[in-house]
């Protein structure tokens, strides 16, 4: 299939999720008069901000034809580290946050080293770090929730008034980071190299690009985003929760896939992952407003994932 189109137009694979999202919004607007409001959309944005942030890191990894099964577990560990240090060890809140971010980035580094030095598939590596991160979280927290957080840590859970809606700082941060990463992946050399490595790692290596360094950078950066996600998670719930993030491992991957990024690497627009996260959030919100049982939400998500991956496959059938 030969498409020459203006380069600013999203790839076919991202138009799909955008249309799906719009259709979902239109549908739910007809089903409940409480759906279509700035307040409700602000709510949905808040509800997806943690998964959305994790999905940024996950997108980077999937763009290099890898996958990270541990993203939620690493996020949970980051959250426990920063809250426990601040509350139980009395550390300065900002310093504790930095420690949480560093722990997440350290896990990213370990993942990246195992993938680039020992040449293990990322699926296997992150399967291992999933369990390790989970165990560390349980051990360090003693399986207990941490409460009484300093206000600096819950800042991103706060809202400010805009018209008759409450806008949440965390969701603004998420949107800002998405825009920054979208720009970075399109317009900067490291960003283009991420796509190149994912599209054809051997070719990229032969042109002199240090592919191992690109991959390492991707995994560490993903870790940073998981750390930021942990801060948002802590801010949203107001506690350090050792059981957080257990479903986020897969929901982040779902968001990326729904957003049209190819699991084979090298293709996809990062804004797609935001759309993917929003699709899940919109369905969850809309179905609750309609009074439909949540099991249908799970069913619909499964169907959408199949549709998304099929569209991805078909739109590149000519090229492969």
């Amino acid at each position, binding site marked *: 299939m030969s498409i020459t189109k203006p380069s600013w137009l999203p790839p076919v694979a991202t138009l799909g999720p955008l249309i799906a999202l719009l259709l979902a919004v239109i549908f739910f607007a007809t089903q409940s008069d409480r759906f279509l409001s700035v307040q409700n959309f602000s709510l949905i944005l808040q509800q997806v901000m943690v998964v959305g942030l994790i999905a940024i890191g996950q997108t980077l990894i999937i763009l290099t034809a890898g996958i990270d099964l541990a993203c939620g577990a690493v996020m949970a560990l980051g959250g426990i580290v920063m809250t426990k240090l601040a509350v139980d060890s009395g550390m300065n809140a900002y310093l504790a946050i930095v420690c949480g971010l560093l722990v997440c980035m350290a896990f990213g580094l370990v993942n990246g080293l195992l993938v680039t030095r020992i040449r293990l598939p990322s699926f296997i590596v992150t399967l291992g770090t999933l369990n390790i991160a989970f165990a560390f979280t349980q051990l360090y927290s003693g399986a207990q929730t941490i409460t009484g957080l300093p206000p600096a840590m819950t800042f991103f859970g706060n809202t400010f008034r805009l018209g008759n809606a409450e806008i949440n700082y965390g969701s603004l941060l998420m949107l800002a980071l998405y825009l920054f990463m979208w720009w970075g992946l399109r317009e900067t050399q490291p960003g*283009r190299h991420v*796509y190149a490595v994912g599209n054809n790692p051997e*070719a990229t290596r032969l042109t002199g690009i240090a592919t191992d360094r690109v991959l390492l950078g991707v995994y560490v950066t993903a870790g940073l985003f998981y750390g930021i996600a942990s801060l948002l998670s802590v801010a949203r719930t107001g506690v350090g929760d050792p059981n957080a993030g257990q479903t986020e491992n897969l929901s982040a991957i779902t968001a990326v896939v729904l957003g049209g990024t190819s699991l084979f690497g*090298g293709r996809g627009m990062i804004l797609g992952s935001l759309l993917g996260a929003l699709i899940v959030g919109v369905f969850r919100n809309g179905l609750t407003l309609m009074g439909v049982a949540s099991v249908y939400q799970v069913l619909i998500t499964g169907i959408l994932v199949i549709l998304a991956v099929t569209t991805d496959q078909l739109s590149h059938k000519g090229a492969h």
Partner: protein
Amino acid sequence: MDTPNQTPALVMEARGLVKRYGQVTALDGSDFELRAGEIMAVIGDNGAGKSSLIKALSGATIPDEGEIRLDGKVIHFKSPIDARREGIETVYQDLAVAPAMTIAENLFMGREIIKTGWLSQLLRVVDKKQMLEQSIARMNELKVGIRSMTQAVETLSGGQRQCVAVARSAAFARHVVILDEPTAALGVKEGNMVLELIRRVRDKGLPVILISHNMPHVFEVADRIHVARLGKRAALLNPKKISMSDTVAVMTGAMSPQDIPAECLAH
């Protein structure tokens, strides 16, 4: 370029290259030379030492013994990146293009133009406009007939993709272009498209080392033919004088180098 009074300068020269892999001796004192403005085809049967020779010249392997000179200066490549820095560009058999990315991006892969300005330099912002303009310029120079530089490489035919790879090496090479089986797996029309391009690269002033199994193609474009056999250079042939079947005979060892008539040898 075979005027007897005026032999062009030697761009690249190798003497006594030896490379062993364990018990196997891939290169057994092989010589090599490349003159300015010529297309030197390298042919040889499997195991003749052809690919080891090319790997040594392109920096992919380090020879155990022997000397390589570039423009008369002795050089030691530790990696293909070193060779690139010296202005030697290699197009590998597997093409080395990223199919989902545009032609312009592929041309500049690894050498992207960064915008000026401290912020752009810090964040390494890519100058897409410049890259596009230069891509168009280069491709026009080489008369490659692809309309849009912003289309993805995967939308091109096999021959067009090969042209992109060759054009990339020609665009950045300062001294030598090495092409490894560029017309393999191409149909007749596409193969000819690539051969045309190779000629234009030579005409631009870049000497080309061409590795190929395809005798007709070799005879179409090569100025001289380096026959590799048993890890050495068996002969240096003149394609205008020697026949294709005799060339194959030298390559397989059916004809011994001593039996080659003098006029078939290249100087």
